[in-house]
């Protein structure tokens, strides 16, 4: 076969950079048992330069996963525990007066790190959430009169607890849209649980060494951005996103009353970016419909506004997405 785009060359490039993925996956396996979807989602977010909102009950290795990832990439890690009395300055930093120097100095907050775990982000008031989400979007922070760019890579992993909703501040739709993916994390299997016990009661704890430099990751991202996305896949993505907005146009009349508002154009961009990263993870130089389907739920579930009727009928966003991708013809 002849090539109109240099797929073979790109494939070779991807193969050369894929060792980073293998290294990170192996490193994660040292500390994390199971949770393959969590690990892959973190890698996709890392490669697609996005952030992840994680929903799961406590104790499912969310912190351990991101700490391990930070250690593997030789990057700085911060954990911010969101509480109702947290202030924006506690996240982004503030100006403090130095008696020795007799002037105000910038005290950078925990947001100045490569990997940030925003634990229980919905426990802090909206102004604190906004401060972090703005930093996520703009990738820069202004303290006093100075603007500071954030480090690259910059990955925020925010968590939400799905069972305790009392006294929380749910993230507004406009802000939740800024997360590339919302990943639901479940309990491990029996086999994985037994392995977790064994690993944690063992005398010797696994040590994680830095295997990847942040600069290598940035280079890898550049390769990810070269992954070929055909116009057929673009149309497929557009069809999926449009079906969330106008389900009746795709023969999904039943969904019309279930969806209050559909996914935004940012969802289309995110779907394309995440599909590219997914193709890269599978060492492929081009995106196929499987890549789109693999990331579709994680990218769209937090971007769909469900109607009261859907909530009353216990219809979830995932069920709506399933209906949509089962109805849209695959190119």
């Amino acid at each position, binding site marked *: *076969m002849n*090539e*109109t785009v240099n797929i073979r060359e790109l494939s070779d490039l991807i193969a050369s950079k894929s060792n980073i993925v293998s290294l990170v996956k192996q490193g994660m396996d040292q500390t994390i048992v199971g949770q393959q979807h969590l690990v892959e989602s973190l890698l996709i977010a890392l490669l697609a330069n996005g952030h992840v909102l994680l929903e799961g009950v406590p104790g499912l290795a969310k912190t351990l996963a991101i700490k391990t990832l930070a250690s593997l990439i030789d990057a700085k890690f911060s954990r911010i525990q969101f509480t109702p009395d947290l202030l924006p300055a506690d996240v982004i930093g503030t100006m403090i007066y130095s008696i020795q120097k007799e002037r105000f100095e910038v005290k950078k907050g925990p947001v100045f790190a490569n990997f940030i775990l925003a634990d229980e982000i919905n426990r802090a008031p909206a102004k604190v959430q906004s401060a972090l989400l703005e930093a996520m979007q703009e990738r820069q922070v202004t303290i006093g009169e100075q603007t500071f760019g954030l480090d690259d890579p910059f990955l925020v992993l925010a968590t939400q607890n799905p069972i305790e909703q009392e006294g929380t501040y749910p993230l507004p739709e406009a802000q939740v849209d800024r997360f590339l993916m919302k990943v639901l994390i479940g309990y491990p299997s029996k086999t994985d649980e037994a392995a977790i016990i064994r690993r944690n009661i063992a005398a010797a704890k696994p040590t994680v060494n830095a295997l990847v430099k942040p600069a290598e990751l940035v280079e890898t991202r550049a390769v990810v951005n070269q992954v070929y996305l055909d116009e057929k896949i673009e149309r497929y993505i557009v069809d999926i996103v449009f079906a969330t907005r106008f389900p009746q146009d795709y023969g999904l009349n039943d969904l019309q009353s279930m969806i209050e508002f559909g996914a935004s154009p940012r969802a289309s961009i995110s779907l394309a970016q995440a599909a590219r990263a997914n193709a890269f993870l599978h060492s492929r130089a*081009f995106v196929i419909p*499987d890549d789109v389907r693999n990331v579709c739920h994680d990218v769209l579930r937090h971007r769909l506004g469900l109607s009261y009727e859907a909530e009353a009928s216990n219809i979830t966003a995932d069920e709506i997405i399933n209906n949509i991708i089962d109805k849209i*013809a695959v190119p």
Partner: protein
Amino acid sequence: MKKTIIFLLLLLAATAHAGPVVLKARLDSATLLMGRITRLHIEVAQDKGTVGRFTFEERDTLSREVEIAAKPAGDTTDLNNNREQIRRDLILQAFDSGLYVLPPVTYIVGSDTVRSGTPLTLKVIPVNVDSLNNVHPLKPVAEPEYKWFDWMPVWLVKYWWAVLPVVLLIAGALTAVWLKRKNGTIIPKRIKKRLPPAEEALAALHAIKARMAMMEGKQYYTELTDVLRVYIDRRFGINAVEMTSSQIKRHLKERGETRAVDEQLDMILESADFVKFAGLRPLPGDNEAAWQRAVDFVEVTRPAPEPTTGTKQ
């Protein structure tokens, strides 16, 4: 003096010629069943021009027990000889049994009072009532019989002929809207009988082959895989049109019916994915090979013809 005497003699003669007023009365029947009526016939014979009046005109009873139920108008008959007869009837009614003597009928002419002759008697006979056997209880209030249109308003019953076409028109419009929503059209499309899946797929594959030289690789592989997807959908009941290549392969492998040609299908789908999504341009030989694999896949997986059970004698 002579003239005066003659005038007085003539006046005397004229006065001596004036006739008497004669009043007669008779009953239709002397007996009367209680509550029934009878007639009292009255006849007055008098000179023409005589003016008189009956005394019963001002009363509604003849006696305390006998009532005048009605006073029909009278009739006057010329008796010639300057005489006339007046006839009046009275309708009498009595509700108390007994024998009653009716007072004479009185007719007043000027200062004279004329009475009917012999007093009349009227016997009122009581009605036998068997109160023990013939007393019936009061009947309950009868319910009116309802008709099917009683619930409808009066205007609807009155103007149904105008309302009916409007109702039919609305019903027709609603049906049209319903059909439009359900089928996308008011007039249902005629459904063409489809060929069996294998025949349909082979016909489509041959049509693609005829146009192979004119098509670009991406279009060629898209049409080729579309035909296979529809065939797999119809043949195996797998919703292949909405599935990715890997999903189709997984579903077919689970079924095991296509084991013999799994590899061929994998090659077709893999090549198609490369052409469609990686922008690769296939060589003419690749197209021919993919087409042949598609035909082989359909031929191998088409259902075996049903065996005939017997022959006609």
